[in-house]
């Protein structure tokens, strides 16, 4: 009950509601406390680009940006992001123009089955926001939280380099 009263102080939401801004649009949602953010995105908001590959926060397929930082949306409860901003793979393109990282993953063949791809792209976007000209080592360190079973990773590194404007 206390928690609710704190919420009420902050915002005019009905009891049990949370406000989450996803890809720039605010959503007022009534969530079960146990609902993981990834399922809020996939099942409540229909944003199925964010994939689920494991339940131990190992694979990174569910990577999204929380207030601009990369996080694994399977280790966050939906209610924990009340009042915060989430960006998913669907939110990267602007007015139909692909994000340079998306373009680069396509052009450099940085994907095979594509299941891990949204997670890798979100992790790469987060890296390039903080480090616009990363070294190869920095790229590998920044993407080490994402697993790919198909590609062998080489073209993923090339894609991030290409997106950063490095000659590949």
């Amino acid at each position, binding site marked *: 009950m206390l*928690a609710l009263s*704190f919420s009420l102080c902050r915002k005019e939401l009905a009891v049990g509601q949370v406000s989450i801004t996803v890809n720039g649009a605010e959503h007022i949602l009534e969530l079960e*406390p146990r609902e993981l953010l990834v399922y809020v995105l996939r099942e409540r908001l229909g944003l199925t680009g964010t994939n689920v590959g494991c339940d*131990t926060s190992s694979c990174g397929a569910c990577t999204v940006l*929380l207030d601009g*930082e990369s996080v694994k949306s399977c*280790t*966050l409860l939906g209610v*924990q992001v009340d009042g915060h901003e989430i960006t998913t793979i669907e939110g990267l393109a602007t007015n139909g123009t692909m994000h340079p990282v998306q373009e680069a993953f396509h052009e450099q063949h940085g994907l095979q089955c594509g299941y891990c791809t949204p997670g890798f792209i979100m992790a790469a976007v987060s890296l390039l926001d903080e480090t616009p000209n990363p070294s190869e080592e920095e790229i590998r360190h920044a993407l080490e939280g994402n697993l790919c079973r198909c590609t062998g990773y080489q073209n993923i590194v090339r894609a991030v380099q290409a997106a950063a404007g490095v000659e590949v």
Partner: protein
Amino acid sequence: MDVLTPRSLEQALRLKAERPDAVPIQGGTDVMVELNFDRARPAALLNLNEVAELRGWSRQNGRVWLGSGLTYAEAMERPLAEALPALAEAARTVGGPQIRNRGTIGGNLGTASPAGDALPPLLVCGAEVKIASVRGERIVPLPDFVVGPKRNVLAEDELILGVSVGGTESRQTFMKVGPRNAMVIAVVSLAVRVDGDLRAAFGSAGPVPTLVRAGLGDVDSFPQRVAEAASPIDDVRGTASYRRHALRILTRRALDRCLV
């Protein structure tokens, strides 16, 4: 399950007093896996993400204060990384960047896992844990804080405010053995600091992360002493004998690095 989200430390302590069954959660690195596995079904979670007082770090009388909400990503950033290089190195080996953005020092202390990556660097730097409840505050040296595998001295109404550490700018380093180059739970981990004396602390080689100290003159025998101080077990990640062996090699290499 209830999720309680206090927006100040005072609210957090009050909530913890009223709901002692509430499990504190910061980055969720450990808590969420337990939840996803259905190994834990807490009646409530105490979501500390919105408690600003637990964040960040500061210098205090020659020591460094680390808020329990300090993330691994923050521990890797200068100038903190220069003050506590072993902690920064340890932080670099935690999970991936997504986990480092969320996971906190306080979470590592709260879980008190024998494999907690932050614990050996904190041990060699003489960390003291500051604990609070509505009843007041207390300070517990880290070796006394962790009392067994995944067990600490927190009373049910208490929260970890942070840790105070010394040994800044001293020679120190961190090493970790795992089966691959990223996202590993340590087979064995080690922090070494040389600063007036020799200190080593290891993880994953006993029920609790353990600190070993010796005089500067004991450099040659120190690796063996560290290995002997371990009480490792055989598990799916490695054997006890390998863990001892690796501790000896790693300690020697860490000393080489620190004594340059």
